[in-house]
């Protein structure tokens, strides 16, 4: 296996780098900057049962070393995604992960099942953690029992490996992780954004139309590292790590903390080439710190 390759359930990745859900659309825009085949995988924007228009604007705000977003799961709906977006991504030699969202158990099942008939989707990322949907997402994401139920339902509905994306907005991340592992999750994806807010001083009101939004970017990296470290010591399914990654050294930090692959979100906005630049830089960072390959790193940090 080559230096950067890593194999996860359903995903034979040529490198451990993928853009994070919601930060890369369905790949079209960034395909104008570089060849998407360079990516380990692509995680698509969330899919819901039918089209969603999301929240009112403003939907983003800048914060110190981070940003808030409250997009509200805007997406064209799972049928449109399968018809119009997946075929586009199928042109590239990369794995495709569908991010599955919903307001009800039934919606999650429906969306997950819809991807069964598409050849070019290799895994599901079950988004039980989006803080910007009022109807259910957040409860699924903070209650271990609910999380287990939706995981089981999606596993039953789908023939693809399921990575459950955990919310950091919980007192006890480990019990969430264990609950979804026990419910049959093939992997974890962590972390989603931390709920935050910014007040617009001239109006004295929350800047985002949705009031609260999800905090992402380098600001949250220490929280992501802590949660991945905590969880990876106690679960045996692999973790796709994310939260504030902007450099190849950040990737190494996530792998040492216990992740087996990583996703890059917010950093794409600052530098559209960030994913490929990280991929190019990774071999140098590996050798700088004395590692032969990605698989050589994985888990080293947590093995003692």
């Amino acid at each position, binding site marked *: 296996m080559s230096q950067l390759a890593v194999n996860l359930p359903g995903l034979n990745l040529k490198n451990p780098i993928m853009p994070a859900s*919601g*930060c*890369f*659309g369905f790949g*079209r*825009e*960034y395909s*104008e*900057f570089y060849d998407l085949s360079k990516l380990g995988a692509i995680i698509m*924007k969330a899919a819901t049962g039918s089209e969603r*228009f*999301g929240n009112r*604007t*403003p*939907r*983003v*705000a*800048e*914060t110190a*070393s*981070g*940003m808030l*977003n409250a*997009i509200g799961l*805007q997406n064209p709906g799972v049928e449109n995604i399968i018809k119009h977006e997946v075929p586009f991504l199928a042109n590239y030699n990369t794995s495709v992960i569908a991010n599955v969202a919903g307001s009800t158990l039934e919606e999650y099942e429906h969306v997950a099942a819809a991807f069964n008939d598409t050849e070019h989707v290799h895994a599901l990322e079950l988004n039980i953690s989006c803080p910007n949907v009022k109807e259910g997402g957040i409860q699924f994401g903070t209650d271990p029992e609910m999380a287990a139920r939706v995981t089981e339902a999606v596993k039953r509905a789908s023939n693809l490996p399921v990575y459950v994306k955990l919310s950091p907005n919980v007192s006890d991340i480990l019990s969430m992780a264990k609950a979804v592992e026990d419910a049959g999750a093939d992997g974890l994806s962590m972390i989603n954004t931390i709920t935050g807010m910014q007040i617009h001083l001239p109006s004295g009101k929350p800047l985002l139309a949705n009031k609260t939004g999800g905090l992402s*970017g380098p600001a949250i990296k220490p929280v992501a590292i802590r949660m991945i470290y905590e969880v990876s010591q106690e679960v045996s399914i692999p973790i796709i790590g994310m939260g504030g990654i902007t450099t190849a050294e950040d990737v190494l930090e996530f792998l040492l903390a216990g992740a087996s692959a990583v996703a890059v979100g*917010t950093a*794409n*906005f*600052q*530098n*559209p*080439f960030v994913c490929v630049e990280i991929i190019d830089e990774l071999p140098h960072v590996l050798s700088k710190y004395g590692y032969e390959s990605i698989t050589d790193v994985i888990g080293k940090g947590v093995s003692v």
Partner: protein
Amino acid sequence: MINKEQVTILSSKTIALDTFEMVLNNHYISQHAKPGQFLHIYVEGHTLRRPISIANVDPEQETITVLFKRMGAGTQKIATYQPGMVLDVLGPSGNGFYIDSNDSTVLLIGGGIGVPPLYFLGKTLAKQGRKIISVLGFQSKQHVFYEQEFKALGETIIVTNDGSFGEQGFVTDVMDSLGQYDCYYSCGPLPMLQAITAIVPNQKGYISLEERMGCGVGACFACVIPTADEAGYRKICKDGPVFSAKEVTL
């Protein structure tokens, strides 16, 4: 196509209260930019890039001019940048103003820091031999800029909120008194655009919109605006920032 480009600052100066004119050098953008498009500027220490309209382009000299107002931390920082510095920008971004080859007289209506993209548009239209009328609104005398530049393109009326320069009032106060025009182009604060589209609802017109952006390239859905029929949406960074006045709901 949008590129990620390094642009060199050739000059930077204050042209009105808190308002700066910066001339940049870059081959690719100077050859490809169209009126209405913007640069998405990386500012050190900031997560998000700052969108700034292209106010002028000289393809021979390979220069791009931007005008910006010091609003918050990002533009504050850009205002300190010195000639010789290199900026990292995405551009040219967004679509441009749609130009109908049948239009012979056009009205430009700018408000405050919405004026800049109209200058590049006006210059382009003037070169094509069209008649230009410009109505530019500013808060006060201190805020006025580019009066001479617009006058060089055609009739130009300046209004200020406090009457300290030009006529007193809003741009909409003088719109009645203008003659016939085939199309208007406007950029400025949302209330101004709303007032304009309400006053001349049946007039062909294009407006340039602002919204807080994440990616600036169409990937993140941060900058959407509902279409007029409320059945769809457009992305300001990619489908815009210019829209037909009838296309979107303000």
